[in-house]
């Protein structure tokens, strides 16, 4: 099981996502915008990041770019979950390791996380 950082501005989604991942045995830290998420990533070096696209101060894409530009963070897998910008995420395959369109099913996300964590190890 792993440490996962969630970047999600909508508190309901953030709460549900955190509970879901904790139930699956992961440790979770959450931020409500991209800037706070990047700070958490720098501080905690998580095994994986799950991010929304539209967020205050820094979007999910900007968060991914910042991580890929940082030698120490660039290999951390990033999953983009988005209601409308999935296509933007898919157009940037070097930024995101997986893209899930909202609403997605719990097992889709958990399977995607498992795959990426297995690949990383």
């Amino acid at each position: 099981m792993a440490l996962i950082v969630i970047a999600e501005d909508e508190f309901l989604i953030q709460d549900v996502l955190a509970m879901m991942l904790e139930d699956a045995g992961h440790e979770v830290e959450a931020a409500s915008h991209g800037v706070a998420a990047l700070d958490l990533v720098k501080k905690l070096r998580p095994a994986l990041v799950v991010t929304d696209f539209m967020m205050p101060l820094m979007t999910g894409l900007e968060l991914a770019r910042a991580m890929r530009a940082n030698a120490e963070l660039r290999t951390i897998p990033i999953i983009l979950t988005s209601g409308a910008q999935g296509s933007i995420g898919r157009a940037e395959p070097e930024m995101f390791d997986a893209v899930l369109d909202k609403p997605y099913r719990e097992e889709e996300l958990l399977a995607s996380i498992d795959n990426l964590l297995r690949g990383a190890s």
Partner: protein
Amino acid sequence: MANHLPRLQTGVPGLDQVLGGGLIEGASYIVQGSPGAGKTILSNQIAFANAAGGRKVLYVTLLAETHDRLFQSLGTLDFFDRSQLGISVSYVSVFQTLRDEGLSAVVDLLRKEIKRQDASLLVFDGLLNARDRADTILDVKTFVAEVQSQAAFVGCTVLFLASTRVSDDSPEHTMVDGVIDLHDELAGVRTVRRLQVRKSRGSGAMGGYHQFEISSSGVEIFPRLEIAYAKPSDDDNPEAPRVPSRVAGLDELIGGGLPTGSVTLLFGPSGAGKTSLGLNFLSGARRDEPGLLFGFYETPRRVEAKARALDLDLHSLVDDGSLEMVWNPMVENLLDKLGHRLLQAVKQRGVKRLLIDGLGGFERAAISSSRLVEFFAALTNELRALGVTTVATWELRDLFGPTVTAPGSEISSLLDNLIMLRQVEVGSKYKRSISVLKVRDSAFEPVIHEVVIGNNGLSVRLPLEPLSGASTGVGSRD
């Protein structure tokens, strides 16, 4: 000279007119109304209209509803453009910032975000949640003042959405530049939506209620006709030549034809020949003198069939663009929507011959009949200004009898010409009669004549034989 403030067009049909030209750039407004009143649709419509015009919009929420659920419901509306999400319209939630760090942190976040997004419009959905987080009235005032001054500094217009009515003396109300109220009320068994601009600094907004509706195209507002056309768009021309009525024998009774730009009321009971006379009039439509039938009772196909039976070929006139028929089923119509629809159809084709069949369709659509005089005054003044010669029908309730339930005297005085059609019982036969009661600025023949419906429609024959009581429909030989 008066200083005109730059405006941000809302893109919502009718709203810019009500606001006196649009929202004022850099100003702040409260958009309020109970749940379901249309605030979210209205504000999103403004957002996407501005995005389509190349502007950036920041939509900030404090509510529990997720953005995906919002997008799902917006997805049923034509203006919603998913491809603009996160590009020109960005939705962000600041609930956690409010909950964890308070109002000043929200202001700080909005300041950064407006600048980062280069937003021309900020929609802040959840003003009352922000108020709930405030400790004092001063906190609320400070919050609103800070958000609006941060936004104004970069020319960003702000819409604060509130899900209940904010009272007139509330701190938010006193701080903002404008307040737009959305009502959703029962009138009898039907629901009527109305918008009111309650406060509008630096802007000559149209006061009072304006009806609106929500369809898949979004919100459409119908400014109250009597204020939208308080002044006709042009002067009418009382010297213009007469317009042939196309009713054989009628022009001789009314001084050579209908005065151009006049409004004629044809009233009489069902079956007296009102619509037939109107169709005769419309048969004079040409491409350079376009005609319009604005009707409530019969579908265009039925009207064409009726005209065919009178040997009037309206079908060809429709085909070559000389004539248009607009049918408004007598269901739950909105008075101002009808008025605007009529004037729009007139302006679009430069209509010169208009038949309204019948005027009672407007009366049925009125929620409050007390404004009908003002409504008809605005409508007829504008038709005259547009040089439209109008014939309108009005159904009398009783087939026979001494009481004539014509429109009220105030409405009748707005009309230029009054012509009554009746069936008259003479011996054991019914005859149709026509009486000219008023022609604007003109002498007319005050003799009751007989009309005949046959080939070429309706025609006026000789004066009716001498009878007493012919105008009541029950005549007796003297």
